[in-house]
Structure formats: C-alpha cells, structure tokens
C-alpha cells in the first residue's frame, strides 16, 4: 500500500542535510508552510539555499529561518518589504547571498526544473542589470535572455487537502508556487489542513498529482482555516 502520510513535521524533515537547496512555497504569508519552517528551524539544518518569492515578513516563518542564520543564499524576486527587517539586516551585513530573479523568470525556472528543460530563452530583463553576464540571442524580431532551471533537494509547500497518494488541492491564492515547486524537488513535503480517503478528491480538480509529492503531513494548527 502506498502511504505518503507522515506522522509529524519533525519526521517529515528529519533527513534534510546541511547545504540543501529548499524550494519554499508561499507568496507573502499566503501558502507559506509556516509549521514546516518552524520544524526546519528546530531540526537545525544550516548553510541552506532557499528559493521563495520573498525574503520573509515580520518575525515568523521564513523570516525566523533567516534570523536563525540557517540560510547562506536566497533566490527571490522581491526581498525588500516594509517588514523584511531580518533579511535587510543580514543582507547589509553581508551575511546572506542574494540572487534577484524577475518573478516570472523565477516561476518559469522552477517550472523548467520540474519539466526536465535544460534552459530557455525569455525576453524578460533583456537589456537590464538583471541580464548582465547572461547569454542572449535574437530570435525573429526580439531579444532574449538565456535562463537555467531551478531544482530543489526538497520542496516545502502548503496545500488544503491531500490523500495518501499525495494528490493535492489548494485554497485560493495560497496555491501560488506550490504546484511548480512540488514538481521541481527531489523530495516534496506538503503540509495540509485535511487528509481525505483515496477517491474523495475529484480527479477532475486535483491540482498537483501525487507523483510530485513524497510526504504529506496534516497539521492541527491548520484545521482552524476555512
């Protein structure tokens, strides 16, 4: 019997080594797998590379992971926020490396990572500072920048419901990076509000098929939602 359900966040993250690349779902706090991040902080892995749209808000979730100095390098599109004080301090002190990526390029690099694409050309950022040093090519009437895929050792994402095969459905804009990150990581851990019987999720509406998900954790803290 296939059963991807893991008893706790602690058990789901136990094997993450130092130096791992982790794709973290969420756009701001929507879809951020906060309980998994708390468990990652407790687990102690350090020297991590993190991929997320942002660089943490206020003091919880990704911001707490940064504050705990577990992150060596971060790839994101929008680190600067009114409440990104932990990132700001580390960045100014030279204690974290930033790779700034346009948001659509970030999403497409992750998608490409999950889809086995070797690289792709995009017009985004051509002629700007963010394309400096990158290979470019004129195709037809447009100029393009060559971009490489992003893959993770792990993806930590948040979904709404799952079954024991790892099929997932999300809730509203909390979906954001979840489906593409799930496909782009060697081991995807999804925290969910509810686990349902196999067959209870309508195959027509499953957003992330279980092939992209290795571990599912149901978290009590999420049950209040919805």
């Amino acid at each position: 019997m296939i059963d991807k359900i893991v008893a706790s966040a602690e058990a789901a993250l136990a094997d993450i080594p130092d130096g791992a690349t982790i794709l973290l779902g969420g756009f701001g706090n929507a879809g951020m797998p906060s309980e998994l991040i708390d468990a990652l902080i407790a687990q102690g892995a350090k020297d991590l590379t993190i991929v997320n749209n942002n660089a943490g808000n206020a003091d919880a979730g990704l911001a707490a992971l940064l504050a705990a100095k577990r992150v060596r390098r971060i790839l994101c599109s929008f680190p600067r926020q009114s409440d990104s004080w932990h990132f700001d301090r580390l960045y100014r002190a030279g204690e974290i490396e930033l790779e700034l990526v346009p948001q659509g390029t970030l999403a497409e690099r992750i998608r490409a990572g999950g889809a086995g694409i070797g690289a792709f050309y995009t017009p985004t950022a051509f002629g700007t500072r963010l394309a400096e040093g990158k290979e470019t090519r004129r195709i037809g009437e447009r100029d393009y920048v060559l971009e490489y895929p992003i893959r993770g050792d792990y993806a930590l994402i948040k979904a709404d419901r799952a079954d024991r095969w790892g099929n997932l459905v999300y809730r509203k804009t909390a979906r954001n990076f979840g489906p593409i990150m799930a496909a782009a990581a060697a081991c995807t851990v999804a925290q969910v509000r509810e686990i349902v019987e196999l067959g209870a999720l309508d195959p027509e509406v499953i957003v992330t098929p279980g092939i992209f998900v290795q571990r599912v954790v149901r978290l009590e803290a999420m049950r209040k939602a919805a």
Partner: protein
Amino acid sequence: MKKLDRHQIAARVAQDIPNGAYVNLGIGLPTLVAGHIPKDREIIFHSENGILGLGPKPAAGAEDEDLIDAGKNPATALPGAAYFHHADSFAMIRGGHIDICVLGAFQVSVAGDIANWHTGEADAIPAVGGAMDLAAGAKQVFVTMEHLTKQGESKIVERCTYPLTGLRCVTRIYTDLAVLDVRADGLHVAEIVADIGFEELKRLTGVPLKVRAAA
C-alpha cells in the same frame, strides 16, 4: 498650475481601458484605476499571484489569509474568477495574453524604455517582482507618474538614468500634465490635462514632443 491629482490620473487611465480587456494593475497609483472603471464596462483584472477576476477589497472582518492580491493586501474574487499557479500566471503575462498593464515609473524615455524597480543607490536593497515580466510581456504598457520630480526635473527623458526595467515597451504615458503616446518617431501629445499650453509642456518636459495628428 492646475494639474491632475492621483485619482484624476487614475480616472483618465480608466477611460482608455476597453470593455472586455484583461488588465494587470501595478502597486500604488495604478491600483486606483480599478475604482474608476465606467460601470458599463466589464474588465477582468489579473493579479500575478494567481487570480483572474480580482474584485474589490473585502469588508472589514471578511478578510481571508489565503486570498490576497499582488500587494499582499486582502482581496476578493468575483463570480467567474479563476485561481492558478505562478507559472500559469506569468505565462499569461509573458505570453502576451494581458491586454494592458499599468505601471508606475521613476522615468520613461522617448523610446519607451521604463525604469521603475531600482533607485540606483548603492546601498538600496533591490526588489523587482513582476515588473520586468509585465514590461516585456503585456500587449500595451501604460505608465502613470507625476510629470516632474519634486526638484522640477522631467521624468520623461532622452535616456533613463535609473536602472532599466524594460526597453521600448511603454505605449502610453499618463501624467498630471499630459497624456503622451510613444511611437516609432517619438512622443506624441495626445492630450494636455493641466492648464498649460503645448509650448509650456514642451519646456517642462525637455525632450522633443509632437502634437498628435488628428485621429
């Protein structure tokens, strides 16, 4: 000089958004455009975090932490709305499916280059979000900004001095003084919205301007 305020600029932009358009509004002044769309038009707003059919702000107490807009503010979804993941959302932008995006800017050049993501200051923490994708991918890029800096310098320039967001992508500029079209042969004044004449507008702008030929 009598000139437009932020809401009046937003209202002027709204006039030019046709029925049925798929539109992405940037953060700040562009967000105000949604509140000025004429009631007889059905416009579908795209929010790059994953919604088509973005609605107005929710009532107090009706916020949902899983439903936010690109500015991370509580949002609503209209009947007919769709949710999707980020790669699909940016395929809509980068694939040329968004009819109009409205962006703020520090500077726009006569060739339609836009600078809106970085002040260029050495110690500034950079953040770009979806600005470069929108500049490169939307069918039409409208820019809203004040015509002049606080020091009185024109934000419409021969060449941008701030770091670029995109090259030759802006199609129309809406300021507190004028509406300008970016064309292959230069900037055309479509409308002066302040109580000044063409010569004064040209003097304040400091780059060559053409009067639009009768449409």
